[in-house]
């Protein structure tokens, strides 16, 4: 297991490098010009100077190398400096956003809590709703509950978040007036009242995201439970007189959870990506809206860094899913 983990970790390094190269080349090939917004009255030689100031003067491979050094060597140093008060990164050039002329990672670090709060809560809520539905649907297959559950998850699976978002806003904010429809990111939780406000403004975006999660995971849970319910060991457990509750929750559930846990791990980065739309609908000031803003402003270092962070998340959670599979299921041996 340990060797497998180490091998996968080592393998993920070239994968990530290759992905960062693809993203870099994609941005390089793109015809957008960061100088497009500069007034026409600015003489060309000044424009050339400005271009060089942005670090655009050098050939592609040099800039790619510089970005790699900045992202993998200087940024971790900055982080260490921040936590331990050391001065490793002092004077080193960091990845600078063209929009704000401040380090990209500082902005990302400011934005990530917003996304994590909304997306993380939604994911947990979605899982907590999905598991019981999936378990009970499978246990009572073809019952009314199962029929309804399957239908509802199918609907939840099919309705895109950019429709459920406005729909929920119309129903709950406009017609009923229960929840605010814009997520106020500057809101700070200090006492009970502000906590209630925070809770209320989180309900709608969390519901939208949780619907997607619930639909996917409960379908997986149901299928996995159905696979296990007909196994021989379940009959054995019943034959030796165990109660139904023990058979289902201990024997069947534990075995059915193996694929579901990996699906949960694999869904983690996708939910970050999917949150881009939900953040846009509810004006959550997270990394999704940061990416869209940077794209429209032609802020290539920001786009490059953010896209790469998404890639890291995907590679990382793929790794976690593989390792979890090996740990949870003793029948699977990687070596």
């Amino acid at each position, binding site marked *: 297991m340990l060797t497998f983990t180490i091998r996968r970790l080592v393998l993920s390094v070239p994968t990530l490098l290759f992905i960062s190269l693809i*993203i870099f080349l994609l941005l390089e090939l793109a015809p957008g010009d960061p100088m497009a917004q500069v007034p026409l009255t600015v003489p060309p030689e000044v424009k050339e100077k400005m271009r060089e100031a942005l670090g655009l003067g050098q050939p592609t491979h040099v800039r790619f190398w510089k970005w790699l050094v900045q992202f993998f060597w200087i940024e971790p140093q900055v982080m260490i400096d921040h936590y331990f008060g050391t001065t490793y990164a002092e004077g080193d050039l960091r990845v600078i956003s063209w929009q704000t002329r401040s380090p990209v990672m500082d902005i990302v670090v400011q934005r990530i809590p917003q996304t994590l709060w909304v997306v993380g809560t939604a994911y947990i809520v979605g899982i907590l709703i999905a598991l019981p539905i999936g378990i009970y649907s499978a246990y009572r297959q073809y019952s009314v509950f199962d029929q309804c559950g399957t239908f509802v998850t*199918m609907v939840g699976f*099919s309705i*895109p978040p950019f*429709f459920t978002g406005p729909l929920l806003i119309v129903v709950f904010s*406009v017609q009923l007036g229960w929840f605010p429809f814009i997520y106020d990111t500057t809101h700070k939780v200090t006492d009970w009242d502000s906590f209630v406000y925070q809770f209320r403004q989180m309900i709608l975006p969390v519901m939208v995201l949780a619907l997607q999660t619930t639909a996917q995971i409960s379908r997986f849970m149901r299928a996995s439970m159905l696979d296990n319910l007909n196994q021989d060991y379940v009959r054995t457990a019943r034959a030796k007189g165990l109660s139904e509750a023990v058979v289902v929750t201990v024997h069947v559930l534990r075995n059915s959870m193996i694929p579901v846990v990996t699906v949960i791990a694999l869904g983690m980065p996708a939910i970050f*990506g999917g949150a881009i*739309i939900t953040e846009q609908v509810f004006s959550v000031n997270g990394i999704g809206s940061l990416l869209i803003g940077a*794209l429209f402003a032609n802020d290539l270092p920001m786009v490059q860094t953010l896209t790469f962070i*998404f890639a890291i998340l995907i590679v990382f959670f793929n790794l976690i899913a593989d390792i979890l599979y090996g740990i949870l299921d003793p029948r699977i041996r990687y070596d």
Partner: protein
Amino acid sequence: MTDLSNPVPLTKPRSQWLSVWDQFKQHKGALMGGGFLAFITLAVLIGPYIWTLDPQKLDIRNKDLRPIFNAIWDSDAKVSWAHPFGTDNLGRDGLSNLLAGGRTSMAVGWAAMLLTLGIGTSVGVIAGFFKKLDGPLMRLTDLFLSLPILPLLLVAVTLFRQPLRANFGPEGGMFILIVAIIGITSWMPTARIVRGDILALKEREFVLAARSIGTRPGAIIRRHLLPNVISPIMVSATLGLAAAIITESALSFLGVGFPSDFPTWGKMLADAVQRMEEFPERVMLPGIAISLTVLSVNYLGDGLRDALDPRIRGR
């Protein structure tokens, strides 16, 4: 001893597709999904010839009309039989916009799905059949699977919009770009499934027999392997169609899709969000159209998967 004197069976052998159809009929949701998909495809294809109002025509005098069914509960609502689905803030007809938008969305969906299948099947077949290419092609698939798809889609669409527009016109360029990008970023599951099936199939006797009478690899793939992997391809086709429609609508919703005067369902939804307190139906109609289409495609896929799986079909 078996009777060999009459080797011809009394009844004609049952076609495989007949029993597939029998099983498919059992799945009511899939039947309805297939019916609805056929209906909506025909509606967007033929509809504009029946409902001939130009979706771009501005009719400021009749702007902000409500759909005709609003009159049921609100007798003061501004409705007109000339515009059964209402008009928008510039007086463009709702129904003809919905039909035109559906045309774009479905065209993008079908084209992107076909491209996805084409790439996925070729990669899968080549990787499964030619041992030398298996390793590199599957590494490539893994790599594509770990790309962040939605951010990359956004990046590519935003950055490559201008040159394609200049070359193929605003609508044509965007169509090519969106279809190509969806195709390039979603072929991986198909490739994996097809490769797995090909790996198992190519060890079977009939492939050995074909090889031993000197059939060339190309002919083996075309005549013996591809017909046998058609069922997983069909199932992933339905999934691909649903995903492509949603992706196109999401791009339009985020404002990086088709140009603003060119209706698609996602675009109409995004435009309507601004004034949805007063005119909720403008969000609802395209939203319901997208959701119902995707739902029916998903049900169709579920039914197809059950019908094409011989283990389930026997029951």
